[in-house]
């Protein structure tokens, strides 16, 4: 299993590198890989669809008990087959579609990356692994939308899709971490088997975060706006990611966790409301679009809303309907996108106002399109009819507020019928268009083959309903957590749902006839509104930029002194906060050396140091400052002598002298004028400085509250003679015990010397 997923990741870069040399070979290689994965997954079908489960576990960090685990059950197998099967079909389509495109190699690389990530997403058992793949699909989607990277529109759309779905991604991570805390497991399988009711203290937060993740990924209102914009991607991408697979990841997440959270009131209501609104909104927006792909995108949003709403209804019947409709939708929407791509490819436009009467020119494309539209409109004997009937049935049988769902499914279904006529009839019948940039001609090979295959598939599944029933039964059981069987059939007898279907078709026909009038009514839908979600996104992004700019100007303003000021202030605050919090005031001081008159000489260096410091503080002459600095330095050296550190003192005297000499040599080349500070800066800096000094004093006084029993002191003093052959312990430490440190020190000095040399001999001035 790991091989199957990794193989696509491995093939991806090679495709990128070698595609251009042999586009045909590498293109078909990707198709074959997807098909091979499909077949491989299909071999598990008998076992898994009977109710079995297959686990694949690979040790990753066994010490930390982290394993890469994939698991196949009815639901993940169905999604896996969907991803790989559609992958093969759409890659095949893309070999023709991308033939003349620039950077087609990149396209195939990204597609493979996406396919592998999506497979990982649906098969992952570990939640964090699932999250990882979830984000990878977002990233590959970003790359694919931004494929035409020279167009600002494509770049903008790609970024938008990435940002919106990543907000959901972060929410997903948070939700998974909370799940891990609450149930003490990250395994999907273990989570599904948990008998504990979902009543923990984090449950509400988890549900809200999961909804956010699913809604952003599956383009639910009000996060839908990225999907129509994502149509900037090449059409195979729209067909694959933005209708059949990636946008269904959110639905997959909902399905997967429905048994755990299905009873939560926020979950059901959230799904029901968002689903209903999205469904109607998407369908209505689709009515007013003129771009074929945007129209399809809004229809996709609407269909996703239908699945979400059905999941929210939560009855056994509704969940079955949701999964069945997912398959229905994948078939017809995949086909329609590919038809749109084919038409775009052959005529050079996707504008619905220019396209009509393509029957003679593109008969084979028409066949695929009409079949798909039949399924979309929910006409018998297409598979779409079966799905639509199930949706109606479950909405009719539902309790409480299911009338809301019934109403919205009816409304959107009417729109589907009307748009089915627009796309499936008006596009091809009537007088042949003469306004297209290229005269329409029939496309070749996969361009009509792939949609025709899917369209015919939609018809086949509608007639041979045993096949989808067999495929989906285990999946629906897993979603609803019951053992109910799934029965699909075209003919249910004379039921209310059938009547509703009939009414839908009639109303859809009416809407189609009166489409010019309805366009006028719906003109408001195309307006620009400041409170529209996309507008809010744009405004939000602009505000975020402004805040970032303001914050950068504040913190990273280029004034070096400000950085220092921030660092010192923060240090003071951090230390003082600790001292106050733990009440670390100096107490029980253990001073060893009393302040007595006997040692009056110790006061001499102290006196000179303080004098020097005061002088430095106030002085404005370079020379005075230099001398005062030396006073401080020699004072420190004298203190070392008095307090038993003759070696340190000697070094200090030497170093002080060298620094003095060098400073003196360069002094006349340094600026003579000493600038004054403004009053506010002076006060601010002095305040920070005093606080810092006081903090350091406080730390020192504090340290004297503790007995310092260093075992190292004892060790060095007793071993110095035997092992280091020396009596001066400080020296022995430097050249023997810690000789490597000294070596490092010498290196530092060497590097500094080189640096100084470079500076001195560097002649930048022309």
């Amino acid at each position: 299993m790991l091989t199957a997923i990794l193989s696509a990741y491995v093939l991806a870069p090679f495709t990128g590198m070698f595609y251009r040399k042999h586009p045909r070979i590498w293109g078909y290689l990707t198709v074959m890989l997807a098909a091979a994965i499909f077949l491989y997954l299909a071999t598990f079908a008998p076992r898994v669809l009977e109710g079995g489960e297959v686990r694949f576990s690979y040790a990753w960090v066994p010490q930390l008990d982290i394993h890469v685990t994939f698991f196949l059950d009815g639901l993940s197998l169905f999604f896996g087959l969907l991803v790989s099967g559609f992958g093969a079909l759409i890659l095949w389509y893309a070999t023709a579609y991308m033939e003349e495109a620039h950077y087609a190699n990149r396209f195939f690389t990204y597609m493979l990356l996406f396919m592998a990530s999506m497979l990982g997403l649906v098969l992952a058992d570990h939640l964090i692994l699932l999250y990882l793949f979830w984000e990878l699909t977002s990233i590959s989607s970003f790359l694919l939308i931004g494929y035409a990277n020279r167009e600002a529109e494509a770049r903008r759309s790609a970024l938008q899709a990435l940002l919106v779905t990543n907000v959901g991604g972060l929410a997903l991570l948070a939700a998974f971490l909370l799940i891990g805390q609450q149930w003490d497991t990250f395994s999907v399988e273990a989570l599904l088997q948990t008998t504990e009711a979902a009543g923990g203290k984090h449950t509400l937060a988890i549900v809200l975060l999961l909804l956010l993740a699913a809604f952003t990924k599956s383009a639910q209102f009000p996060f839908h706006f990225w999907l129509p914009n994502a149509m900037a991607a090449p059409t195979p991408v729209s067909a694959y990611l933005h209708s059949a697979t990636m946008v269904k990841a959110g639905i997959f997440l909902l399905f997967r966790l429905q048994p755990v959270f299905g009873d939560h009131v926020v979950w059901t209501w959230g799904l029901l409301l968002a689903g209903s609104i999205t469904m109607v909104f998407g369908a209505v927006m689709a009515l007013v679009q003129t771009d074929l792909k945007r129209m399809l995108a809004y229809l996709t949003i609407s269909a996703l809303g239908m699945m979400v709403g059905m999941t929210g209804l939560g009855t056994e019947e509704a969940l079955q309907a949701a999964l069945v409709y997912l398959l229905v939708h994948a078939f017809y929407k995949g086909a329609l996108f590919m038809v749109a791509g084919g038409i775009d490819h052959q005529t050079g436009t996707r504008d619905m106002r220019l396209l009509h009467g393509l029957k003679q020119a593109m008969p084979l494309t028409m066949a695929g399109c009409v079949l798909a539209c039949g399924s979309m409109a929910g006409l018998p004997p297409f598979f779409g009819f079966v799905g639509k009937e199930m949706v109606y049935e479950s909405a009719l049988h539902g309790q409480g507020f299911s009338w809301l769902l019934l109403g919205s499914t009816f409304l959107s279904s009417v729109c589907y019928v009307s748009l089915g006529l627009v796309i499936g009839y008006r596009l091809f019948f009537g007088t042949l268009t003469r306004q297209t940039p290229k005269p329409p001609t029939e496309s070749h090979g996969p361009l009509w083959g792939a949609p025709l295959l899917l369209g015919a598939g939609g018809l086949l599944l509608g007639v041979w309903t045993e096949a989808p029933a067999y495929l989906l039964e285990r999946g629906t059981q897993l979603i609803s957590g019951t053992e109910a069987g799934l029965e699909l059939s075209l003919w249910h007898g004379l039921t209310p749902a059938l009547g509703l279907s009939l009414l839908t078709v009639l109303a859809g026909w009416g809407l189609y006839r009166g489409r010019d009038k309805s366009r006028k009514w719906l003109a408001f839908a195309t307006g620009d509104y400041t409170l529209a979600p996309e507008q809010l996104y744009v405004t939000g992004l602009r505000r975020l930029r402004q805040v970032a700019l303001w914050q950068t100007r504040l913190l990273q303003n280029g004034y070096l002194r400000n950085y220092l000021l921030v660092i010192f202030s923060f240090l003071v605050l951090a230390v003082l906060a600790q001292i106050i919090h733990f009440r670390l005031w100096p107490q029980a001081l253990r001073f060893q050396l009393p302040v007595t008159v006997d040692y009056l000489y110790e006061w001499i260096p102290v006196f000179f140091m303080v004098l020097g410091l005061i002088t430095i503080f106030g002085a404005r002459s370079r020379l005075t400052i230099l001398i005062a600095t030396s006073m401080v330095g020699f004072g420190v050296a004298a203190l070392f002598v008095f307090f038993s550190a003759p070696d340190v003192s000697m070094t200090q005297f030497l170093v002080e002298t060298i620094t003095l000499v060098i400073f003196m040599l360069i002094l006349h080349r340094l600026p003579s004028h000493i600038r004054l500070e403004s009053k506010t800066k002076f006060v601010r800096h002095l305040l920070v400085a005093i606080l810092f000094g006081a903090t350091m004093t406080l730390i020192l006084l504090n340290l004297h509250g503790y007995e310092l029993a260093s075992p190292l002191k004892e060790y060095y003093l007793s071993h110095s003679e035997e092992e280091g052959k020396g009596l001066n312990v400080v020296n022995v430490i430097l050249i023997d015990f810690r000789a490597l440190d000294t070596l490092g020190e010498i290196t530092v000095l060497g590097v500094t010397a080189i640096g100084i040399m470079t500076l001195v001999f560097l002649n930048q001035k022309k």
Partner: protein
Amino acid sequence: MEIILSVVTGLLFTISVYLLLHRSFIKMIVGVIVFAHAINLFLFIAGKITRSMPAFITEEEAGTAALSDPLPQAFILTAIVIGMGVQIFTIVLLNKVHFTAETDDLDTLKTTDLPEA
């Protein structure tokens, strides 16, 4: 005596931080130097100080407990030498900056670009 020295160390820190924040080159250089002194003294005092008991091992073997701790001293010795490298480098560097950028104000050093000729 430690209490006096602790206060003096605090004063060293105060002045050096003030100088480091100064816009004038010379004051900033001196700030770097004084800061090194302050840190060294800080380490020295934190490691407990003793009078007239350097860490020399004598013939008498009078017991080592009374001797001063050699370890902080070794640290400080290293620090002093490294500090010297840093100080001299700073002096030379600022000299070069003054020469190249023709400024004596740290606040004008905001960009990597040279001033217009």
